[in-house]
């Protein structure tokens, strides 16, 4: 057994079970914690893919920011409904649909020559080349992304600020 494969399998198992925990758990705080672990496992997957930089980014932004923001929101909107979150009435259909998507996509991956004939060596991505590529080739999307963040910032302030008015 290849060492990489073992590590990969373990992380994947943790990832998928945590992900299932997110969507199945009845307690929303548990879901948020499961999400945190799932996101950390994704960082592990990135490490297996020899992408340390992105693993760090994943930990910082997803683990450090997004989950914290979610927990923050949960605290602020403390709600007695949280420990007994219900499913949609249509959840069996949702389940069937997801399984169908799962099967279709998996079959297509197995059927695809291009995917199966891919090389088996993982090439590491250097942070330096990543950086230079980000600021040269991808400069325009980068600028745009900064505007997106600006909009999100302004929007969050506009929406959440409690000022005069109201009903």
């Amino acid at each position, binding site marked *: 057994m290849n060492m990489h494969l073992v590590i990969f399998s373990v992380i994947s198992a943790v990832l998928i079970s945590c992900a299932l925990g997110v969507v199945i758990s009845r307690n929303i705080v548990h879901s948020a914690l499961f999400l945190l672990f799932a996101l950390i496992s994704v960082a592990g997957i990135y490490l297996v893919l020899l992408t340390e930089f992105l693993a760090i980014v994943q930990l910082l932004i997803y683990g450090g920011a997004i989950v914290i923001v979610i927990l923050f929101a949960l605290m602020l909107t403390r709600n007695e409904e949280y420990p007994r979150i219900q499913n949609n009435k249509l959840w069996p259909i949702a389940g069937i649909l997801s399984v169908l998507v799962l099967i279709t996509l998996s079959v297509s991956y197995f059927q695809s020559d291009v995917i199966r004939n891919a090389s088996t060596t993982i090439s590491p991505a250097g942070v330096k080349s990543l950086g230079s590529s980000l600021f040269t080739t991808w400069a325009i999307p980068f600028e745009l992304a900064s505007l997106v963040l600006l909009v999100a910032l302004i929007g*969050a302030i506009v929406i959440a600020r409690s000022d005069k008015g109201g009903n």
Partner: protein
Amino acid sequence: MLELIHFNILSVLLFSVGLYGVLARKSAILIIMAIELMLNAVNINFIAAAAFKHGGGLFTNFDGHILTIFIITIAAAEVGLALALILRIFRNKSTVNVDQFDMMKL
């Protein structure tokens, strides 16, 4: 041996779980969490493709990684905005369940 398809299948699993979460859950916050799972599935796919196929064919740079960075950025912004909205709704209505937003029926 680790192959590209392993990562693809992992990503499919994660995507389907996220999809189930979006479709089956009621709470807006939970739906957003499930969407985050879907976006992570996307990222795994991108990085795996870039890592395995780097150097061959049209793959001459780090597109996959770059795409992932952007997606993470946008996702973070999206969560921030969505949670601000949820906070606002909670202040106005004291609920965050999507199916209790029922003012707008026919």
